[in-house]
């Protein structure tokens, strides 16, 4: 085994490179700044471009422009930057722009504690922009998963023409771990396939709402259109309610219809378990230890770790909750993803949150005691 000793942000940058990312724009913000730094080192020798923008709005604007011109683009920020990205994320959804956004979460709200971790943006990224249309969000628990899921995030963003969030946390991004990146089998990068038609290209064309339209890059063979305004399949402004609804249905259907394909969970199942711990991100690691300690105590406990947060892997969560009387949801926030669990829980099952938002990790002991696992 050959190991490296690297932080999560380096794994994200190197994963992006493996995924074929050749454009990065960002604005310095702790704990995401080192991604900008790594990309400034990694991209130019590969013929790519990494730039520091004048602010977060410009950073994501550059990325949207570059993506529509054919480059796989990445940006990275933390909660305050996501606030500034908000309107452009709506644009990227509207324009069906492939784009990966890393949110290295830190203690908020507002400026909060810049150098401390939290998982405070879990619902924020889902409802980040006006309109409430779906996005995809993946959540790594380790440096290795940060590497692996970054590649997956790029593939999903290309496949579904939608912004994909990688929800990291200072505790993963700025913690060094011994890790063997070369031993990780990465997904092959998904390349953008140009439209096959030579005329009458419709930038948002689909026959069935769940179809993902082929994307013509600016500068390639076809003259194309992109617009923030309510538009039809050809990208022209429309005020026709039927056409508007058809487009909205499309933005929703292309993600919802693919929910099972996008769902990625790890189910550590114990036969006859009456308790299930559902967790994600850095907290999943302590949750796993808590479940193990509970089993050592003779309790029957299963554990479900979510790597896909959105679209909510409803089938996998519902299946894991079957027969369970008690669901424990530990989170480094005041109870965000628990809302998804509550709506999926079987009748009669108690859903219990274990919550802390004081910049320190939830410990296995806190999860076990407050979750009633002992």
């Amino acid at each position, binding site marked *: 085994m050959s190991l490296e*000793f690297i932080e999560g942000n380096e794994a994200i940058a190197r994963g992006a490179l493996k995924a074929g990312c050749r*454009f990065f724009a960002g604005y310095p913000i702790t704990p995401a700044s080192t991604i900008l730094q790594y990309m400034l080192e990694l991209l130019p020798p590969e013929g790519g471009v990494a730039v520091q923008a004048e602010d977060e709005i410009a950073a994501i*604007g550059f990325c949207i422009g570059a993506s529509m011109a054919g480059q796989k683009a990445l940006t990275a920020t933390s909660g305050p930057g996501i606030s500034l990205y908000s309107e452009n994320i709506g644009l990227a959804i509207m324009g069906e722009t492939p784009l990966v956004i890393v949110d290295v979460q830190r203690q908020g709200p507002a400026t909060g504690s810049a150098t401390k971790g939290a998982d405070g943006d879990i619902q924020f990224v889902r409802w980040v922009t006006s309109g409430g249309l779906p996005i995809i969000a993946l959540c790594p628990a380790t440096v290795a998963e940060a590497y692996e899921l970054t590649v997956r995030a790029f593939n999903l963003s290309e496949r579904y023409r939608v912004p994909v969030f990688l929800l990291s946390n200072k505790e993963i991004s700025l913690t*060094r771990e011994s890790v063997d990146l070369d031993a990780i089998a990465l997904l092959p990068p998904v390349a953008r396939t140009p439209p096959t038609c030579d005329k009458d290209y419709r930038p948002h064309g689909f026959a069935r709402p769940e179809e993902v339209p082929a994307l013509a890059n600016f*500068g390639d063979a076809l003259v194309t*259109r992109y*617009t923030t305004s309510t538009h039809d399949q050809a990208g*022209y402004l429309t005020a026709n309610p039927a056409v508007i609804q058809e487009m909205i249905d499309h933005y929703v259907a292309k993600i919802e219809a693919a929910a099972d394909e996008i769902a990625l969970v790890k189910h550590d199942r114990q036969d006859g378990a009456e308790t299930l711990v559902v967790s994600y991100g850095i907290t999943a*690691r302590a949750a796993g230890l808590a479940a193990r300690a509970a089993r050592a105590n003779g309790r029957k406990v299963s554990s479900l770790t979510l790597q896909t947060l959105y679209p909510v892997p409803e089938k996998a969560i519902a299946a894991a909750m079957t027969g369970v009387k008690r669901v424990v949801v530990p989170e480094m926030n005041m109870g965000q993803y628990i809302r998804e669990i509550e709506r999926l829980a079987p009748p009669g099952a108690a859903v219990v949150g274990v919550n802390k938002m004081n910049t320190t990790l939830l410990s296995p002991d806190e999860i076990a005691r407050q979750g009633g696992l002992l």
Partner: protein
Amino acid sequence: MSGTALRTYMTDQVGPLPFCPGCGHDRLLKDLDKALVALQIAPKNLVIVTDIGCIGLADRYFVANAFHGLHGRSLTYATGLKLARPDLTVIVLIGDGGCGIGGTHLLNAARRNVDITAIVANNFNYGMTGGQHSVTTPSGGRTATTPSGNIEAAMDLCATVIGAGASWVYRGLGYEQGLANRIVEGIRHPGFALLDVCELCTAYYGPRNELNKKKLYELVAASGMGLGLLADKARPEFGAAYREAARRAPKRQRVTVIEAAFTHSVAKQTGLVVAGSAGQKIRSTATLFARAGMLAGLQATQKDDYPITVMTGPSVSELNLAPDWIAYTAIDKPDYVLLLSADGLNKIRASLGRLPPSCLVLADEGLDLPETDARLMTLPLTRAAKEVGRLSIGTIALAALLESEKLFPMAAFEAAITRYQSKDIAEVNIKAMNAGIALVANTA
């Protein structure tokens, strides 16, 4: 381009232009069309970028790629498009409103000098939302939001971007002869070019201020902001400069890969807190020690805590070493605490009272230590560092710890020092390592 020359870049397939009768935008777009005909840019290589405001309605009337984005952000998309595809000709049509809300992008596009041509359709107010005042509304100008006349000063867009470094700047009137030629020059300019085109808004600003073409000219002339070509200088274009710098950029060195070469005696996850001061190389020495542990077959994690003013105050590194994968990276009950300075001690003082008796505290002599159940080892670390080198106190302390606790062979630490540090730093640190060993031997 191949084939016959295009006689117009405007299409009649989408109906007539949507602007109010007499609106300056109509004339401006026709001048843009003339410029494009003169340049004969292939439509697939041409992007018209617009944002919100009446002028933002323009893109659909052109046979070109169209990018219509958020209010005031057109320059950011244009920058991304141009950096990703340098072969594109990128033209931004923006209003005076967009220049206000997107002011920082205007400044930075000018400063950066990406090869974009920005044409400002400047009619001194927000036509799309009811004629509110904008950053260019003249003093005294009447708008929906300045009912008794504008008491703010108008922003001189040209002077502003020139101040920010713009390399080609022109101010003209929407109805002047030859504007199409000026647009051609702006597009040909290899860098950021801005044309501030002053126009009539016939729905709002014109009638509210009794403007006509003649009075518009008088208004702009009287402002003293200048008309005509206001800047034309050669500056490196950002994209070209970027690509040139990238050709010279060194390829990133292969990251350090660590193969286990030694054994260890660490049976369970072991937490080590190194608390010192900025300037003591706490973080890099902790990383070095972790790599030494990895050379001995251990897994490791490291977290650092230090103030944002990095050259002052405490610096604390938390290291975990374990025979297997480390799930929980916080150190609630450390096995070892190294106190290298008063800063470090004060930073973690509150936690010292909770240390278990199994914990070993290895502290510099002379520190004001609180009551603790932990085992205590006091060594003259600062004094030893004075002899070896000020920056080596961490290595001295960690070598002392290793000599005392035998977590893994000292040879692994030595190998890490020589492998992962530059020769001159390694030389000092080998001395520091030996000094640490000697401190423990003297204690015994």
